[in-house]
C-alpha cells in the first residue's frame, strides 16, 4: 500500500477521534451565557413576563430596564421581535394583547437623558 494512503487513513482516523472526543466523551458545556444568546422562544417568554408585570405596574422605565438584559437594542425592537415570535409560535390571544400593550409602551418610551453635571 502506498504511503500516502496510510497517511490519509491516519489523518481521517485522527479527525474521527477528535470529533468523537469533542461530541461524545467531553462535549462543550455552555455556562455563563447572556440573555442575548437565548433561543427566540425563551426570549419571547421573558418579554411576556415583562409585559405581564407592566400590565400591572404601568411603569415603562422599569419595563425598559428589564428588557435591557438583552443588550443595547432599543426596548421597542426587543418587544416588537417578541410580538412577532409570539404570533409565529401561536401564543394565546390574551398574551399577545399583553405583548402588544408593552410594545406600544416601548415605542412611546423615551429614556431619561442625564443632564450635564449629574451623577452618571
Amino acid at each position: 500500500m502506498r504511503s500516502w494512503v496510510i497517511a490519509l487513513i491516519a489523518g481521517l482516523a485522527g479527525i474521527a477521534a477528535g470529533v468523537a472526543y469533542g461530541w461524545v466523551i467531553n462535549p462543550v458545556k455552555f455556562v455563563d451565557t447572556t440573555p442575548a444568546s437565548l433561543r427566540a422562544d425563551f426570549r419571547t417568554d421573558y418579554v411576556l413576563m415583562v409585559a405581564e408585570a407592566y400590565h400591572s405596574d404601568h411603569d415603562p422605565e422599569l419595563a425598559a430596564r428589564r428588557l435591557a438584559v438583552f443588550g443595547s437594542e432599543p426596548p421597542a425592537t426587543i418587544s416588537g421581535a417578541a410580538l412577532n415570535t409570539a404570533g409565529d409560535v401561536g401564543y394565546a390571544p390574551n398574551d399577545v394583547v399583553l405583548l402588544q400593550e408593552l410594545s406600544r409602551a416601548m415605542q412611546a418610551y423615551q429614556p431619561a437623558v442625564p443632564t450635564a453635571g449629574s451623577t452618571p
Partner: protein
Amino acid sequence: MGIGLAYAWVIAPVRYVDTSPNTLRSDFKDSFRTVIAASYAATHNLDRARARLSLLGDADPVQALTAQAQRMLAAGDSFQVIQNVARLASDLQAGESAGVPASPHPPSSTSSPIPTVSTTAAPSFTPASTPTETATDTEPPPTAVPIVTATARPSATPIPTAAAPFELVSREEICNSNLTSGLMQVSVLDRHRHQMPGIKIDISWAGGEETFFTGYKPEIAAGYADYVMQPGVLYAVRVAGAGSPITDLTAPACPDTGGESYMGGLKLVFQQP
C-alpha cells in the same frame, strides 16, 4: 494547528446562540427570577411561575428564591421587588406542602406554551461574521447597557410606613429544652399571611435597646427573626417603627422532668391588619 487556532480565536470566534436559561450567568438568573416574581405578583399564576423557574435548572427553586431575596436585602434593593421574590418562594413552598408537584404543569388552554429545555439538543454556535470581535465568549455585565446607566434606579425604603402598623396576633410561651434558653422568635406577616423579610424590629429594656431585622434566617422563614432574652428582664418590642410597642415580654420559667426549672422562650407573630 496555529493557523487553526488563529481562525478559531481571532478570525471567526465562537458565538453562542439558541442557549437556554439554565446556562445563564448567575446574575442574569437573578434577573430572570426577579421578573418571574414580578410576573407572578401581577398574574398569581403559580403553575406558570413554577414552569418558568424550572427552566433555570435550580435544584431547589424555593431555596434559590429565598437566597436571592437575602442577597437583595443585603444589597438594599427595593422592598417591593424583594417582597415579590419572597412571596413567590413562600407560595411555592405552600403549594408544594399542599401536595402540588414540583414539576412544571402543562399550560392551560388559555395560556401560551412555556418553552422547554431540550435535554438532547445542545445549543448551537455559529462563527462570528466580523473578525473584529474578541475571542472571549463572555459579554459585559448588564450594568454596561446604556438604559441602565442613564437612569437612576428607583429606591424605596424597606420599612413599611407608620400608616400600616403591625398587630400582635399570636403570643406563645415556648418550653422546649432543645431550643436556646430565652429565645424570642418573631414572625412578621403581611395582611395575606405571607412572610415579610427586611422588617425592622426594635427591642428595648430598662437601660438598653437594640434593632434587628427579619429575613436573615431564610432556612426557617423569610419573615423570621430571633433574639436571646436575659433572665428576669422585661422587654418591649415594636415592629417596623410603627404602632404601640408590646411591653412586659420576658422569658418564662419552664419546669423540666427533674422538678427543676429552665428558661423558656417566646414566640410572637405580628401581622399587618
